[in-house]
């Protein structure tokens, strides 16, 4: 069970101050696909199509792509002929591309290899698809593990595409998804689950959509194929785009690390939870993830010592990143800015533990100043704005409303322009616990809102802009926490740690 956290407590404690109610100045995050990109605003699809993913052209030795080849391996459950045939069609689309059916809600896709500027993508032929009996995937993988290893040895990244009849919206057949994730993660192989979920008169999942597309030629697939490719690319360790984590457009100050923290209960072990952290660097690149040893918690509240250990481990992990070492190696920089996000509130003991960890780290890395911003997030829909001057009354993405001295509503999702018709979205509520205090990197609410928008723009799981509500730190940590609640975790030191294996 993933932590619901004490969000209710934070909600109950929220105070609105009428004199503070005002629109906060924000700047829309700039997603960079290339260092020479001239356009201010590019959607992920046009950015990748025009420039390729960011790491394919980057000259920075730490950001540039470390692979040029991907090898796909396709798995399907025995006896599921519809899954098999949909997978066959899907692989054809991934290899040869797709022409949009309509101009409005569809988009072209030139094939995975072309769009993502890869030298080689091996898409298996239907005869190479591997079938497995449900519950026996482990054995099948053992029989084929040499295939994966030879792929690694040949310089490719192997990715397992697993078809099945489970879908995230339904509990039925959930064990299929869990089995696939558990088996491949334990073998350090990134996997992508694609579902075929059929109901009486309709269906869900990409494979179902593909089948329908081939049967009726009426189901637009462009966005779904882009999303799948983006997920596969992220799981191989690619960086499709970056967002520079500037605190404000007016200064050169950056947030060096953003850290998101979530908790999950350990199944069948009452009272014990795991803490999960996701670390993003100053470009929004994933620096790593960290899961604690089992913690005995009362009410999802870390003790001072637990917080000290947890934050110390996170900071050590963040600072041990190759690129980070280059920049912050002993005495090279004088200041580090860190933003820490969590749902619900930061308890006093946790803050004390964090301070202790920061002091220890400060001595070790020899920097004179470590600034930290503590940001509590409320994701439950509570307050919403309506724009009377908008024909649909929708509030534009990026709008922020300050509701008290250190809290604001922020629209991390929503229409990009005022006239765009899009379904209503709720803002998140962000509260900077130590706004404008000593050692806080954030001095104004505008800086806090910009930071949240910057981190939320790193939604590498979808090409649809402004569609993920939570900052990437918390969104990713939530995925890791969900998998951990099913007992799925990375091995220590796994290479997957710097990939989006959890998507």
């Amino acid at each position, binding site marked *: 069970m993933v932590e619901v956290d004490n969000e209710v407590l934070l909600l109950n*404690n929220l105070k609105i101050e009428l004199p503070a109610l005002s*629109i906060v100045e924000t700047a829309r995050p700039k997603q960079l696909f290339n260092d020479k990109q001239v356009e201010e605003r590019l959607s992920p699809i046009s950015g990748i199509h025009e420039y390729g993913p960011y790491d394919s052209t980057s000259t920075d030795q730490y950001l540039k792509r470390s692979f040029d080849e991907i090898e796909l391996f396709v798995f399907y459950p025995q006896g599921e002929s519809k899954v098999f045939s949909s997978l066959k069609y899907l692989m054809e689309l991934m290899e040869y591309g797709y022409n949009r059916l309509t101009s409005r809600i569809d988009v072209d896709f030139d094939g995975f290899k072309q769009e993502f500027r890869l030298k080689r993508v091996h898409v298996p032929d239907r005869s190479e698809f591997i079938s497995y009996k449900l519950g026996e995937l482990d054995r099948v993988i053992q029989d084929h593990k040499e295939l994966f290893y030879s792929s690694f040895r040949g310089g490719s990244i192997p990715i397992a595409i697993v078809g099945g009849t489970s879908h995230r919206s339904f509990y039925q057949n959930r064990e299929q998804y869990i089995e696939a994730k558990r088996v491949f993660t334990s073998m350090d192989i990134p996997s992508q689950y694609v579902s075929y979920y059929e109901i009486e008169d309709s269906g869900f999942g990409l494979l179902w959509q593909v089948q329908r597309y081939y049967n009726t030629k009426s189901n637009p697939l462009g966005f779904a194929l882009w999303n799948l490719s983006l997920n596969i690319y992220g799981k191989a360790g690619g960086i499709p785009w970056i967002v520079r984590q500037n605190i404000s457009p007016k200064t050169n100050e950056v947030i060096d690390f953003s850290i998101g923290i979530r908790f999950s209960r350990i199944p069948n072990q009452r009272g014990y939870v795991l803490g999960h952290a996701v670390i993003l660097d100053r470009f929004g690149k994933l620096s790593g993830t960290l899961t604690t040893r089992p913690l005995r918690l009362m009410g999802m509240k870390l003790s001072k010592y637990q917080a000290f250990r947890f934050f110390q481990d996170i900071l050590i992990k963040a600072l041990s990143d190759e690129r980070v070492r280059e920049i912050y190696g002993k005495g090279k920089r004088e200041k580090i800015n860190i933003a820490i996000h969590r749902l619900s509130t930061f308890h006093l003991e946790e803050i004390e533990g964090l301070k202790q960890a920061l002091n220890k780290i400060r001595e070790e890395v020899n920097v004179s100043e470590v600034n930290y911003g503590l940001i509590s997030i409320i994701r439950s829909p509570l307050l919403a704005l*309506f724009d009377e001057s908008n024909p649909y*009354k929708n509030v*534009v993405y990026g*709008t922020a409303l300050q509701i008290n001295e250190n809290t604001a509503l922020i629209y991390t999702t929503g229409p990009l322009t005022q006239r765009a018709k899009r379904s209503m979205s709720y803002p998140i509520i962000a509260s900077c616990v130590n706004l404008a205090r000593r050692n806080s990197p954030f001095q104004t609410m505008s800086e806090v809102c910009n930071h949240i928008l910057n981190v939320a723009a790193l939604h590498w799981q979808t090409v649809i802009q402004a569609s993920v509500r939570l900052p990437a730190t918390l969104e990713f940590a939530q995925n890791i926490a969900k998998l951990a609640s099913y007992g799925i975790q990375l091995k220590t030191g796994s290479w997957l740690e710097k990939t989006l294996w959890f998507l």
Partner: protein
Amino acid sequence: MKQKLTLNIMVNEGDSLVNVKILALRAKRQEIRRKWNAKSLRNYLVNQGIAHAFHGNFMWICPVDGRAVENLDVNNLMQEVFGASKSVVIRYLDLTSDEVWNPIGIILLRDALRYALISKVKSSSSLLVTPRCEVYEKNFIQAWRTIGVIAGVDLSRIVRINGNICVCIKLTYECYDGLFRRVDDPSIRVRAISRVTKITSDEYLARMSSIMQKILPLNVFISNKRILFNKWNRIIEKGVVRETLLRWLK
């Protein structure tokens, strides 16, 4: 340029919640008779027009039906709830103060709001109130062969605003069958509800408005105080759109 934004809150326009007269019974939650559990006790007391909260060795109670505290039949209540007499004192509390708000204030206010909503819709056959302070309109906004979805407003989120209180209103949905029984199967519910929730803000407002106009004005009594809700959206008067935002809106 000024941008006119509205916020989905209804602010109390009645009495302030300072010096609210509350009865404190020296009793713990564990002392209640075995026939009650937390839910059934709350249902019973709200139906009697009484709000309650347990905190710090006391049961805090007050009438929410407009009666004065003195008119409560406390002895009868104690027998019914505890099967024994308890010592009683009268306290005057500031329900929105930091110490009182979480353990007592918000709980009593939710009970009071729930009672007020039940009383308000008693005469209306088209509305339905749930224990979680949700008010649904009994018309399917979309129906299929055997099931349909109804829309309602969730009024359970009470937030402090400048020493006063406001309720944050949210649209909510439920899935019912043809005989107006709640559909429990989550896969059917999720499917049905997800088909009606992808709407623009103006459609959202229209749905909310049709229910809110049947609820407002709403008088909520809590002991010696009367809370009044008249409007459900607040205009952000200070909403000056800065240059960067203007650029986005073009």
